Each structure stands twice: as C-alpha cells, then as structure tokens.
C-alpha cells in the first residue's frame, strides 16, 4: 500500500498529468482509507482551481500588494519610451 508521502506526491501529480492505471487504483484505495490525505487532496484541488481563476483575472495579473515602481526608474523608463517613440 502507498504511504501518505507517496500518496501526496501522486495527488499533486494528478493535477499535472494523467496517472497510470496502477497509480490511480493505488491512490483511490489509499485516499478511501486515509482522512488526512483526503483533506490534503480536497484542499490542493480547491486551491489549484482558485489560483488558476485568480491569476487569469486582471486583478491577479497585476499583483495586489501595492508594490511601486521606484520613482527613479519611473523617470528613466519614461525618458526611454519618449526616445523610442520618436
């Protein structure tokens, strides 16, 4: 039987690729018996969908924590754009 450590690796891999039949069967059996890995899988799947939804939104693409481009490079980049645009 799979250990929890092996099962979590497969739970994550299942988000990236199709597991082999043997892996799917082994994982299904493990998760049926193991509430900790069930919680891990549920959380990983929801978080994965959430990330995908958020980062394809305009808000997610812009980052939310108010990082500012430093004034000095702002001015430098503006100058460079002006020169390039001429």
């Amino acid at each position: 039987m799979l250990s929890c450590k092996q099962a979590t690796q497969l739970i994550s891999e299942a988000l990236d690729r199709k597991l082999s039949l043997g892996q799917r069967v082994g994982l299904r059996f493990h998760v049926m018996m193991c509430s900790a890995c069930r919680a891990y899988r549920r959380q990983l799947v929801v978080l994965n969908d959430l990330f995908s939804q958020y980062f394809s939104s305009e808000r997610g693409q812009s980052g939310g924590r108010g990082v500012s481009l430093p004034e000095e490079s702002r001015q430098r980049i503006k100058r460079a754009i002006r020169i390039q645009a001429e």
Partner: protein
Amino acid sequence: MGKAPRDDPDPEAPRKLAGEPPVAPACRPDQWVDLHGDAMFSYALMRLRDRDLAEEVVQEAFLAAVRGIDRFQGKSSERTWLIGILKHKILDVFAKRRREGPVAGLDAGGDFVDGLFDPRGMWKQPPADWRPDPAKLMEQGEFWAAFEQCMEHLPQRLAEVFSLRVVDENRADEVCKVLGITDTNLWVLLHRARTRLRHCLEANWFRKKGKTAQT
C-alpha cells in the same frame, strides 16, 4: 441596471450599426508608466524576485511595446497586452539563465516535505480540516497578500516552477524547456511548491481566520 440617459448617446452606436469593429482604446505610450508601471513591476518582481532585474525587464517590455504598437488592436485591454509582452521578456530571462549555467536547485524544498512525514511515510502532523470557499477567497485582498508572502518564502526554484506553470499557465513542456529540467523534475518540484504553499496558507490564513474562511 439603469438605461443610459437619452441625451448621452453611445458614441459607438453608429459604428455598431454599420457592423464595424469598435475603435481601439487610445494607446498612449507617454502615459503607460503612470497607468501600468506599478502593475508591471509587481508582476515581474513576483516572478524574478530581484528588484533590479524586474525594473530592467519592465523597461524592456515597455520599449518592445512601443516598437510593436501597430500590433495592438484593442482586442484585449492595454494592460493585458503589455503584461503579455512582459511575460515573454521574463521567459527570456529564465532561458538566458539556463544557457549560462548548470541547472541548480533541483533538491530545493525536499527537506521540508520529508519533514512532514515519519520514516514510514505517515503524516507527522496531518493537514487541518479546513474547507476553502473559492468564491469568498477570490474577493479577499488579505488572502492574496498572505499568499504572496507565502510565495516569497518558497525557495527560488520552487517559486519559479510554480509561477511559470500554475500562475502563468505555460505548457508543461515549455516550462521544462525554459528551465532545462525533465518532466519528473517538474512534477516533484511542483508538488513541493504546492505542499509548502498549502502548509503556509494553513498556518497564516486558514488557522487564523477559523470559521470566517470556511464554508
């Protein structure tokens, strides 16, 4: 759901009737830095984690946009178009790094995952039983701030694979090529990144917020 007042006609109405495409929004490079500079910078910084490099790449992206301004057709917003250009510039940085040195950091984060399990591979500390509510979390700025902090604590290599694959949704084979790693490397690294992020969000958000974050 109020209708627009009759004395304020839709300026595009005649064009719509004539079946012409809507006018592309004004594309004004002299305003880009003020309108999009911060967003571009934070986008690059999260992915590159180096302020100087992020500033440099943002400048390159803006200049490439000026050169290619004729290709902007107003199908997407100006912001989305600029971010798309920035995304390519960032991939170039990764590809350049890859060409310049050996692939490092493949063992990043392995110890952390090992530490969650006992020698038989059983959980030492099983995941807590929280149930994320995606609709609510989407709207919570604080949650995304916590997420970004967790991202900053990931080892560099894990942050890279996570950003390229999960955040930017590049194809797996593209990510492997750009970083010079195999499929198997990618799956292991993504697993470590997800496991650390899950653990970090549990500690810094779901445990703290308790019931408010649950369904």
